[in-house]
């Protein structure tokens, strides 16, 4: 078993809510190389030959297994670009826990671009959790630019749960989903920005198959002088249902721009969007004050639950 240093262990704790262990199917990418990895009977992880990254093969017999593929960047001045491809066979049921943590204690920028492609077979059910986090006392920026492509076959189910907890100076997130017949997509995006951070999230959902459905929930909190831009698009090319909901809490000097777009290219495409940006509700604060919570404590509780 590989020895993991204290900084890395602390970052892993932040980005892997299930707890990272060197057991089952896993791959820990550390400062641009694979520190350790393991396979199981049903899940095989192979290093790519032509470029940085891994191919993960998940067989149809997989029922309820987890794959942990965290990334830790702990050096200043590093740019790490990695391509991970997932091949999920028909009928598989799997939870993939990814996430990236940057510990930058230097003065140069540290950057990780994770390009993930999921090929989800018929009737397969995938839950993908991804947490992004930055820390370190250095002046160098912590930058994360994830690209997620999901190709869903008939009746596949994909749950995408992404969260940027704090400490990421700049992020540009690109997500593209292509859905087959009766495929179901659930997206939950949670984002917290502070200080002078900036975050952009673009999401294109193509509902191509008859009976496909997508539910996209985006919740964010912008504090300090941070900036956020959301642009989720649902494109209905068949009989389908989609619901986009963007909710943001804006604080201090922050700026938030939310542009949900719905595009019906078929007469039976039913697509809805809701978007709201606003301060913390004063009535909520007062209610929590009546429980004996101070202003600061009440604010923290509201944010914590909103992003829960």
């Amino acid at each position, binding site marked *: 078993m590989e020895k993991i240093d204290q900084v890395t262990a602390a970052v892993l704790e932040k980005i892997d809510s299930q707890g990272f262990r060197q057991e089952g199917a896993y791959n820990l990418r550390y400062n641009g190389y694979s520190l350790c990895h393991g396979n199981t009977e049903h899940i095989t992880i192979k290093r790519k030959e032509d470029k940085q990254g891994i191919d993960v093969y998940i067989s149809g017999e997989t029922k309820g297994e987890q794959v942990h593929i965290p990334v830790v960047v702990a050096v200043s001045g590093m740019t790490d670009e990695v391509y991970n491809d997932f091949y999920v066979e028909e009928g598989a049921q799997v939870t993939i826990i990814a996430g990236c943590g940057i510990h930058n204690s230097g003065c140069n920028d540290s950057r990780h671009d994770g390009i993930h492609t999921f090929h989800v077979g018929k009737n397969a059910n995938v839950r993908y959790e991804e947490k992004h986090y930055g820390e370190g006392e250095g002046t160098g920026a912590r930058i994360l630019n994830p690209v997620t492509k999901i190709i869903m076959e008939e009746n596949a189910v994909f749950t995408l749960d992404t969260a940027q907890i704090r400490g990421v100076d700049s992020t540009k997130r690109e997500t593209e989903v292509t859905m087959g017949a009766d495929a179901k997509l659930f997206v939950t995006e949670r984002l917290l920005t502070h200080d002078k951070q900036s975050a952009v999230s673009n999401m294109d959902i193509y509902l191509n198959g008859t009976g496909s459905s997508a539910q996209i929930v985006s919740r964010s909190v912008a504090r300090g002088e941070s900036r956020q831009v959301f642009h989720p698009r649902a494109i209905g090319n068949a009989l389908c249902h989609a619901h986009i909901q963007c909710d943001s809490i804006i604080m201090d000097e922050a700026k938030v721009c939310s542009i949900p777009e719905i595009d019906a290219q078929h007469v039976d495409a039913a697509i809805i969007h809701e978007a709201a940006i606003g301060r913390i509700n004063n*009535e*909520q604060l007062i*209610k929590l*004050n*009546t*429980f*004996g919570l101070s202003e600061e404590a009440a604010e923290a*509780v509201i944010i914590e*639950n909103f992003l829960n």
Partner: protein
Amino acid sequence: MLEVKNLVFHPVDNGIEKSIIEDISFSVEDGEMLVITGPNGGGKSTLAKLLMGIETPDSGRIVMDGVDITDYSIAQRANAGMGFAFQQPPRFKGMTVKRLLSLAAGCELSEKKCCDYLSGVGLCAREYLNREVDSTLSGGEMKRLEIATVLAKKHKLCIFDEPEAGIDLWSFSMLVKQFEQLHKEKEESLILISHQERIIQMADRIMVVRDGKISALDQKDRVMPNLVNEDTGCSCMNPAHRS
């Protein structure tokens, strides 16, 4: 014991000073139930908010158990033993019923405890514990949950602002039982703002607030006979509407 002395509140709205509360004084004894009633817009809810510190009076003092709490914040009043149930409780996206009750209680509540509080207000606990306190709950469910949050902690004084509003008849009976129980235990002083005859009937004393002033304050038996002649803002209290 709560003592309210010469409370005055003249908020400025669009540059015009309004008279909302005009020199109100009264007291609530330990274990007493005082029901405040009166016409809509008379200042009842504003008075309740002044007591809890949600609004700040222009003058007057509020004293609880001999301590002047007029300058206390809402949280300080809460920590001094005051509880408050809102007429229109706010919703919280992402917060579960269990979490809200735990925050209200000031400690992490067990499922069993949560169930006790929820069933006390007619909510089936199993269905609700992990539900979010958001727009998926109906107005009636929100009101019952609001009352449960106040019941989840021991207070010296609890203020309920129209607890019956938006609650169905069956739940209302349960609520009345809860208030009767609280009243019987005599451990908490209760101020209820209400138009409901069944709630008014439970009072030790009744205070009628009209045009920002107390128009009557006395034992229930003395105020009740006159109430039916007053326009309290509630159809059920008005004989003309009773048919």
